[in-house]
């Protein structure tokens, strides 16, 4: 019984899982169980407070002697750089963009959750914790999630003090709204640009430290390797993307805050440059990659129109508050102008199937329902080419209507404009259609990844001295992320969690300086140089872009919204072939000693290919449906996701098995003491 691993007399509410199925047999080896040695104990509401007290301090005079490298400048990285700079450490901050202000956190639209209970509608730290664990299908650690809910209120205070212009009531107090899957109003927002305003707050705080001399900023730099010396992360190898120079940067500790890897699917709502390279290079050096198959598909994106498309654009989920989602009842009506389809011929499928939550069901459920409508042939909008599971090419309309018509009639056009103004403009610009006149078309798209580098409670990876924050780590969201929770996690990690946990590690420092000719540094540099040399010398015939596109097709088809054993095995084969083809036939022009966007992309795509294979293996092993992972073999009679807590209530942490080896699976059991596992139901 798992209870024996718990302290302080807490009673486990579930048994340790015992996996009996083994769909991925032959694709992996089983490693030892993993225990989060830093996991806190005691009553859940005291765990973080106790930990902050127990963690050692670093006195201000000693902080000046400690060097911290932070890669990534989004909400997690920017906030961490600002906070650690203020504390007096020497921070070196790296980003691939031309300015930290462009990190992709800037694109988040909807809002940020916080348990402030300003509406007196029954919200509390515990309720936010409860909603988040339930929303994540009980695949997150309860201690981490509770901490997240606990610090959420401080985040709002911090951001307001920085001048983030949140929406306000007439009395001057903060306004908030509700979001999908939740029954209280706890989402703080700045129209449809919350991410932008929060990021600018963190960016400005960080720039203030640049001026103060505590943070040194390296823009247009890409981390290509982590330096691990004597068992600890001690620095990075980065490429100056303008000159092509390979640089060594050493420090006492390294933090990765490099965002998510949704671009493995080629088309996603991620920025074009978002990539997995920093995390993947760390993975190859010994950091475990946890739950890589958990991908959040967002239900309300603008549909694909053709093969030229480079990325997808999200329409904030808040539109589902006022929009009704439907498809024609009869496939024959799909080509018609939607305004000519009478009410009785419309199928408001979410309201029909899920009467309790209607259009506000959680993201995974809304997404799958839309897919099924289109699979049935009732999708709307332009037909796009697809290669089906049978390998046959076909034309399918991938879109459902999001109809604001009734809301415009009820509230008036002005009200809708005020609420969703910039979103509707964006829609009109991209599609060339006026959403006030005709229903919008939406379709699910890859949005956020819940998987990432495995970290302990203190956000340290399995490599000592290498920390990981924000979307780049796996923690907090479980198998699915609630709306408005990503911003919360990024800022919680950056402002409040990491600065309190990294102290304990740094209390042992400064570590003995390592020289630039330390064997570990030379080895890491040599790896980077050899790899770049390899990209430049293949001189094949295919563009990097075409490989990325092909990988994306495989991932979306077989490891997208729905996965099956057969499909995943097929995908693994296809990816392995693609990898061989890549290394023998990729074409990169230009030189390595100058700005070379194709070379940058080649490195990222090579890593995406390896990650894609691991995602499929992880998905293959997990023969259950949970959150953003839907296995065709595991569903209820009426097609709903079916979890198997008895087998899979664990974090799958994968260890790199070597170039020719297979990945090693370490399982970390998820034992709950404060919250009871239940099957989710939104009917």
């Amino acid at each position, binding site marked *: 019984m798992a209870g024996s691993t718990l302290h302080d007399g807490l009673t486990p509410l579930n048994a340790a899982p015992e996996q009996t199925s083994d769909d991925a047999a032959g694709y992996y080896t089983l490693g030892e169980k993993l225990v989060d040695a830093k996991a806190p104990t005691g009553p859940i509401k005291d765990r973080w407070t106790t930990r902050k007290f127990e963690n050692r301090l670093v006195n201000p005079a000693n902080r000046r002697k400690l060097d911290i490298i932070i890669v990534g400048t989004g909400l997690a990285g920017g906030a961490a750089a600002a906070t650690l700079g203020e504390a007096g450490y020497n921070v070196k901050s790296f980003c691939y963009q*031309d300015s930290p202000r462009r990190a992709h956190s800037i694109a988040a639209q909807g809002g940020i959750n916080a348990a402030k209970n300003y509406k007196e509608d029954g919200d509390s730290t515990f309720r936010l914790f409860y909603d988040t664990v339930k929303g994540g299908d009980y695949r997150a650690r309860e201690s981490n999630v509770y901490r997240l809910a606990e610090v959420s209120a*401080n985040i709002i205070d911090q951001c307001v003090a*920085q001048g983030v212009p*949140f929406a306000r009531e007439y009395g001057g107090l903060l306004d908030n709204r509700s979001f999908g899957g939740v029954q209280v109003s706890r989402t703080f927002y700045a129209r449809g640009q919350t991410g932008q305003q929060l990021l600018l707050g963190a960016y400005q705080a960080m720039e203030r430290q640049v001026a103060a001399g505590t943070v040194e900023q390296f823009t247009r730099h890409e981390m290509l390797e982590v330096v691990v010396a004597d068992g600890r992360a001690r620095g990075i190898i980065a490429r100056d993307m303008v000159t092509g120079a390979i640089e060594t940067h050493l420090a006492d500790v390294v933090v990765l805050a490099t965002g998510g890897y949704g671009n493995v699917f080629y088309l996603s709502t991620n920025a074009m440059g978002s990539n997995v390279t920093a995390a993947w290079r760390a993975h190859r050096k010994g950091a475990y990659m946890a739950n890589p198959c958990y991908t959040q598909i967002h239900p309300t994106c603008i549909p694909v129109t053709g093969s030229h498309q480079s990325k997808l654009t999200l329409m904030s989920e808040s539109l589902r508050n006022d929009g009704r989602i439907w498809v024609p009842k009869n496939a024959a009506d799909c080509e018609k102008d939607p305004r000519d389809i009478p009410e009785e011929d419309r199928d408001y499928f979410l309201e029909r199937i899920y009467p309790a939550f209607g259009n506000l069901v959680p993201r995974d459920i809304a997404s799958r329902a839309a897919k099924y409508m289109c699979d049935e042939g009732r999708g709307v909008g332009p037909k796009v080419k697809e290669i089906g599971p049978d390998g046959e090419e076909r034309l399918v309309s991938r879109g459902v209507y999001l109809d604001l018509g009734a809301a415009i009639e009820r509230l008036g056009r002005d009200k809708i404009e005020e609420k969703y103004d910039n979103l509707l403009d964006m829609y009109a610009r991209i599609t060339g259609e006026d959403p006030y006149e005709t229903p919008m078309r939406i379709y699910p798209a890859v949005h956020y990844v819940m998987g990432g580098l495995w970290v302990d409670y203190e956000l340290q990876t399995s490599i000592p001295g290498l920390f990981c924050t924000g979307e780049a780590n796996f923690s907090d969201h479980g198998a699915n992320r609630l709306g408005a929770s990503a911003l919360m996690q990024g800022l919680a990690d950056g*402002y409040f969690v990491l600065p309190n946990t990294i102290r304990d590690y740094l209390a042992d420092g400064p570590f003995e300086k390592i020289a630039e000719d330390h064997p570990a540094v030379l080895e890491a540099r040599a790896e980077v140089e050899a790899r770049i040399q390899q990209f430049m010398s293949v001189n094949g015939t295919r*563009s990097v872009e075409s490989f990325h596109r092909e990988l994306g097709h495989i991932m979306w088809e077989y490891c997208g919204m729905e996965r099956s054993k057969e499909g995943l095995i097929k995908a693994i084969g296809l990816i392995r072939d693609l990898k061989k083809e890549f290394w023998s036939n990729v074409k990169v022009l*230009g030189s390595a000693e100058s*700005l070379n966007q194709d070379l940058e992309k080649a490195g990222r795509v090579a890593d995406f290919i390896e990650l894609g294979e691991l995602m499929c293996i992880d998905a293959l092993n997990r023969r259950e449906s949970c959150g953003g992972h839907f296995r065709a073999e595991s569903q209820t009679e009426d097609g709903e996701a079916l979890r198997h807590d008895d087998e899979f209530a664990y974090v799958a942490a994968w260890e790199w098995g070597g170039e020719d080896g297979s990945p090693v699976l370490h399982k970390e059991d998820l034992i709950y003491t404060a919250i009871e596992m239940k099957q989710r139901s939104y009917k």
Partner: protein
Amino acid sequence: MKLTLKIWRQANASAEGAVHTYELDGVSQDMSFLEMLDLLNEQLLTTGEEPVAFDSDCREGICGTCSLMINGQAHGPEVTTTCQLHMRSFSDGDTITIEPWRADSFPVVKDLIVDRSAFDRIIQSGGFISANTGSAPEANSVPAPRDKAQRAFNVATCIGCGACVAACPNGSASLFLGAKITHLGELPQGQPERYGRVTSMVAQHDHEGFGGCTNIGECAAACPKEIPLDVISQLNKDLRTAMFKGF
């Protein structure tokens, strides 16, 4: 659609640049302007010519990375970012001239990419509210009037793309500067540093070599986020007050 593209090519900051002409076929009306350039680059790759370097990232109009002069206009003919400009704004057979941002303070890095780090240095000089993590009071303890908060938000939406500078005959960054001064100056939290902020930010602006504002208004006309020209009035007003107060 078939297009003739005249594109500025420049190998690096110190190299001479020149306009190269390319013919491109198979452009769809649904493509964004940048997807059209992606298509060109795929074509160049097959002929062995190095792809055209240009900056873009989010491709949904919010990160401010994309930065092209299109037929002499910053971000092209519509009031939007280049990534949100679609080819339906052009016609079959068009000739399109594509250049990098024009401004001495934004030196060319390569082809269509420029260096906008001067903007970061302007922010470093005072474009923030000094609030250390953990020292913030309860958020609702300082009410902010709704109209002021809304105005702060409206101008805080500046994406720092630099179109205002590229469009200005003087190469002035006054709109960028005015937006930040107004954003922070409208909020109660921004008051303690208000006048020191404007003095140091203007000094840094001038130090970076941006030109002075002569109220031409091209900046506001080119701004994809429609930051209004009156933020420059706010900037000037705050600057006058600051000088009067001896900052």
